[in-house]
């Protein structure tokens, strides 16, 4: 950022023509509107009937603090709502918290609906109360990562950055 700014001033300093100043201003604006690069956008929400959203809110906030744009969908989202949100928001990932025990059904359905919408490249991950023995089945159906209870928000942020920040989306 600093280097680019210097660069820009140099250009301005050398040039005496207004158009190049305008061009330079335009690129500065683009850079600023973009905030210095494309942001990681992802959906974070809860599916299932339980009403505990404390954990998922903490995760949403932590990811925002890590510089991401987190579209928080709230509680009791149907798989359809989640998949449609991922589509409309052009999200690179979907993180779901599921405490109700319905994780196998919900993740399978969300993955299906994402794929149906041509969103095969959207990374699906989650956490909540998910027994370790279910994790292989979840991974097989296309859940990229399952976080156990007590995972630190830093670990989740690192994972998301590593997985979604690669510039493929």
């Amino acid at each position, binding site marked *: 950022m600093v280097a680019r*700014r*210097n660069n*820009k*001033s140099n250009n*301005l*300093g*050398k*040039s*005496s*023509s*207004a158009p*190049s*100043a305008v061009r330079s*201003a335009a690129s*500065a*604006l*683009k850079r*600023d*509107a*973009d*905030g*210095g690069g*494309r*942001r990681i*956008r992802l959906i974070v929400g809860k599916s299932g009937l339980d009403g505990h959203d404390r954990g998922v809110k903490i995760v*949403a*906030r932590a*990811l*925002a*603090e*890590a*510089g*991401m*744009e*987190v*579209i*928080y*969908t*709230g509680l009791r989202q*149907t798989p*359809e*709502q989640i998949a*449609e*949100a991922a*589509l*409309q*928001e*052009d999200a690179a990932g979907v993180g779901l918290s599921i405490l109700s025990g319905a994780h196998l059904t919900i993740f399978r359905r969300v993955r299906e609906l994402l794929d149906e*919408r*041509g*969103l095969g490249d959207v990374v699906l991950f989650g956490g909540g109360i998910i027994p370790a023995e279910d994790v292989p089945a979840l991974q097989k159906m296309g859940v990229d990562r399952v976080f156990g209870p007590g995972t630190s928000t830093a670990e989740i942020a690192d994972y998301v950055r590593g997985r979604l920040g690669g510039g*493929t*989306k």
Partner: protein
Amino acid sequence: MPKPDAAKLLASARSGDRAALARLLTMVESDPDAAFVAAGVVPKAESRKPKADAHIIGFTGSPGAGKSSLLDRLAGELARSGARPACRGEARPSGRRPAVLSIDPTSPFTGGAVLGDRVRMSEETLAVGVFVRSMASRGAAGGLARSVSAAARVLALSGYSPVLIETVGAGQGEVAVAELADTVVVVLVPGMGDDVQMLKMGILEIADVYAVNKIDLGGSAAFVEHLCEAVSGPGAHGRARHELAAGPVSDWVPAIVPTSARTGEGIVELVAAVESHRRHLAEDGRGQALRAARAGRRILRALAERLAAEAGCEGSCRLELGKLAAAVASGAMSEWHAAGELLGTSIMSPAAKSGGRKRLLDSRPAGRAGRPGSDHGKSL
């Protein structure tokens, strides 16, 4: 992934591909120009002329007033209400395809954001085809994000109308929406501090329609009455909106609609009020004139923001800034005046920078703060 082509995405979006629309919106968020580049290409590829005359409706009001909840109800109602059986008894599509753009603030510290307006979007609203997009303000002032007008344009080009825009809801200084929307709905809640406080603020002067929300909680009758008096009296508030936009003064008297996003009461009336304002704008090209006036305001806002973005102050500019800062800190001049000094030397005149800038800076003492006869000197 190869960089997607904005024009191709727009062509797909126009044929109903929502994923392409979503991708184009992402592109527009980092480069507002992409929308206009794409729009310029499309007519050549298609026989249909792109129509972009979507009715843009802005929603503003205090945090928690119920903007998102009302938008959910309103968008659903707009999508459904036209779909009544026509005279021959067959169902007729409403022709309205509402889209929602909800803006939430970006953290100035981390650059991140929690975009929470989708929480209020119901399954029913999505089921009737409403397109909902969240946007982070990304540092723009005035309650919107910089790319909102370009995003609204892309939605319009993709066949969505009306485009409903929710501001960040800071409650104050939400003027950007008045510079963009054809119709501004201000959402107020009696007893939430809105009563006395809000009436003092500029926010009331931008309303075409007031939604007095949460009437299910009671106690709204007196508030509505009070608002009616304020709005229909001489120098009615709504006019200022048009003067703000430097357009023709309008004889529109702001509509006041009591609503409950919880029970759905007043939603049909809210649709009617917004529609009635749209018809009012359509009379004798009034709406078009106002659009042009608002565009002028947006250019000036963009100019200010671009200048701020360009004010990366280094080298000799830093030296000048140091001198000016000392002068401002010691009370010798205002920061407003000092900014003008920097503007004159380092930003507005690139030509001066190449050769003349150094001379300019050297020949000038720390600003013209004490220069007798300057406006600033007088005001001190």
